[in-house]
Each structure stands twice: as C-alpha cells, then as structure tokens.
C-alpha cells in the first residue's frame, strides 16, 4: 500500500477526529484564558479616551469581530477551493462549519459598530463605505447558508455552495473597491470612495500603527483571543458535522439492512 503523505494523514476524517479530540480542550482553554486576560486589559487597564469616554471599549469587541468576519469568509473560500479541486470531504465540513460562525462574527461587528456609532456619529447606522461593505459581506454569508439549506441533496449542496463561495471571493474586491474607493499612488490610480465617515484602517498600515500602544496591546490580545475562540468553535463545529454525517450514514445503512431482511423474509 502506498504510504500516505503527512497532509493526507492530517486531513483524513478519522485522524482529524482523533487529533482534534486532544487539541480541542487545549484550544478552548487557551481561548478562555486569553479572553479573560483580554477583557481585563480592555476593561480595566486600557485608558479611557478623552473624547469618546468609555464607549471606546466597544472597539475591543468590534475590531476583532470585523477581522474574524473577513477571516471566516477567507477560510470558507480556501476550504471551498480545496473541496472543488481535491474533492476532500473534510474541506467541505470546514466550509460548512465556518459559515455560521463567520456570519455570527460579521453580525456582531455590525451590531457593535451600530452601538459605537450612536454616541460617536449620532446615529446607529450610516451608509458609510466600510459599514456597507461589511453588510454586503454579511449578505454573502446569508446567501451561502441559504443555498446550502435549500438544496436537498447534500453532496450537490456542498458543490454548489463551494462555487458560490468562490464567486463571492472573486466579486468581493469589486464590491470593496466600488464602495470604499481605491488609491494606488505608484500606478497613479485614485478612485473616490462611494461615501465615507469611517476612520481609515489604523492598525495595519505601511507606516506603522496609528494607535497608541496602551490601546493597541489590549486590542491585539483581544484579537488573538477571539481568533482562538473562532478556531475552537470551528473545530467543535467540524467535529459535530462529522458525527452528524456518520449518524446519517449509519441510519441509512440500518434502513437498507432492515429492507433487505424484509425482502428476504418475503421470499
């Protein structure tokens, strides 16, 4: 028999179930610990903004949620690609499990954004460029979840959802650029933004973060904590999905067995 490569070993569902059984508790423990540290830093250590007051603390939930909403979609897209190209069942399990979690984080980003926007901008919702593109990201998630649940044949549903996920990734840059504008100085390209009130990205910038470290460190700790939480939930959801599929195939096998016994008895 041909020896399996490391990747093949790691991605086989049975081995995934075995390894995730030991990894999951560790991951959950780390996520909980980091969340506690992150929340402590955010609520008690980080200074209160002189303009925004305590509302600035919403940021520690808002920013990681927005990041994870985007990361979730990237995860779905990569998994979908893996499923369409390599036909690997685990990739589909991963795509399916990430959809709800990613959608939840995107919704969380929208809701916390609204709550933060009320004292800052005087309204819960503005048709600001970045808000709008996150809203569209949420719609893309909804489309994926709806499509998967609308197709009865699970195998077909997986394949079609994977195509939709990839189409979504192809179209996301168009959406982002059309709504948020684009500026590439060295090519001489500047496209105006559709409408903006939101502050520009302030952590990942080429000239270094524009946030003071007293806020930046708690923010990064929180981002890491929520990322760990995301992966812990994702792993748990994948385990559940694999178990669900096993139960389903066992149930079908059981029906087949009783049916064949029935026909044998008739004869």
């Amino acid at each position, binding site marked *: 028999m041909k020896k399996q490569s490391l990747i093949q070993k790691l991605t086989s569902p049975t081995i995934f179930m075995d390894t995730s059984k030991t990894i999951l508790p560790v991951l959950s423990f780390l996520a909980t610990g980091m969340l506690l540290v992150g929340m402590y830093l955010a609520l008690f250590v980080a200074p209160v903004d002189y303009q925004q007051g305590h509302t600035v603390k919403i940021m520690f939930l808002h920013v990681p949620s927005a990041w994870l909403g985007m990361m979730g979609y990237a995860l779905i897209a990569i998994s979908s690609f893996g499923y369409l190209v390599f036909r690997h069942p685990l990739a589909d399990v991963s795509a399916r499990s990430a959809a709800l979690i990613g959608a939840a984080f995107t919704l969380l980003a929208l809701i916390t954004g609204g709550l933060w926007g009320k004292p800052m901008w005087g309204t819960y919702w503005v048709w600001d460029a970045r808000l709008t593109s996150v809203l569209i990201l949420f719609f893309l998630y*909804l489309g994926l979840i709806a499509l998967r649940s609308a197709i009865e044949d699970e195998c*077909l549903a997986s394949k079609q959802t994977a*195509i939709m996920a990839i189409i979504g990734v192809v179209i996301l840059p168009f959406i982002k650029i059309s709504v948020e504008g684009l500026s590439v100085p060295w090519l001489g390209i500047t496209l105006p933004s559709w409408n903006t009130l939101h502050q520009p990205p302030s952590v990942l910038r080429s000239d270094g973060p524009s946030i003071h470290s007293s806020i930046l460190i708690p923010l990064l700790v929180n981002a890491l904590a929520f990322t760990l939480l995301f992966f812990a939930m994702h792993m748990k959801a994948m385990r559940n999905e694999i178990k669900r599929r096993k139960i389903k195939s066992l149930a079908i096998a059981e029906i087949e067995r009783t049916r064949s016994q029935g026909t044998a008895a008739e004869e």
Partner: protein
Amino acid sequence: MNGFGLLLLRDIRLALREGGAIGIALGFYLMVVALIPIAVGPELKIMGKIAPGILWVALLLSALLSLGRIFKADFEDGTLEIIATSSLPLELSAAAKSLAHWLTTSLPLAIVTPIVGALLNLDISAIPIIVLTMLVGTLAISFFGSIVAALTLQTQCGGVLIAVMVLPLYLPTLVYGTVTVSIALTPPGSPWPSFLLLCAISLASIVIGPCASAAALRHHMQ
C-alpha cells in the same frame, strides 16, 4: 450557422413566443417605479434627484424576476443534457443562454427607461447617460445572474433564494451605474472613469458568468 448562434436564436424565439416573460418584466418595472412617488410623496424636486437611483433599483429587481427561467425549463425537460452532450462547450451554451436573457429582458428594460423615467421627472439631459450605463450594466445583470440561476436549479424556494444570492453580486454595477449618472449630472468632474469601471465589470461578468454557471450545471447533471 454554428451552435452558439442557433442556441441563441432558439432561446430568443422561445422567450418571444412565450410572450409573458418580457411583458411581466416591463410591467413590474413600471409598477416599482410608480410605487415610489406614491410612497415618498409626489414632490417633483425630490423625484428628479432620486430618479436615476430608483430606475436602477427597479431595473435590477425586474431583471431578477426572469433569472430563474434561464436554465429551468431546459433542465426539467432534459434539453440541457442534450445541449451539454453537443459539440458546443457548455460554457458557450451558458453564454448563449445568458446573452438571450440579456437581449429579451434586460435590453428592453434599458430601452423603455426614458419613458418610465418621465414618471419620475427625470432630467431630459440625463437620459442619454442613464440609458448608456444601463445598456452596459445590464450585461453584468444577465451574466452574473446566470451563475445564481444555475446554482439554484434544484431548489424549492427559487425566487427568494435567487434574490438573496444575486444582489451582492450586483452591487458594483449598481454603484458605478448610479455614480456615473450623478457625476454626469453635476458638471465638474468627468463621468468616464466610473463608466469605464462599469464596462470593466460587465466584461468581467461575461468571462466569469458562463464559466461558473457551466461548472454549476455540470454538478446538476452528474
């Protein structure tokens, strides 16, 4: 005549002889546009200002209605499998069917826009640019729409699902379509950059649409 042209002609003929399709789309377009002044209030100044946006949204919604038809009937009676086994690549067949949808649904909607726009006190000077953006933008509507039509072939709640899935795909077209018109109406600044972007998106849709819908159709016929 080659397979592409034959399939295109067949689909156009079917759409015309069915009769209902174009009429329903045009009627729905008129209906949506007529409802807005009733809801917002008939103030001509406000109407004129929001007219391009309303026309675009109404056009998107009306084109949505008939998306489900692109592949449905052919899939149900098995014609699609014959088309798939023919010498014409499935990608080109999907392109022919999307193009037929554009010619029979989206194009008529774009053409009647000046008349419907009159209901909304649309500025006469805005008519050429708005029709031009619609002529280009509706290509993306038909070709992106064909993807979702192909993906949702075997679902029960077709219509609503199509709407949920396809509207995010239409967003760039909607943004550049309306931005082009509004820049053209407020003189300083040239509308051409955003118009060219609108063209770029439509061209991209012509490539992405048939490839993706052919992939989706193959999954249905395995």
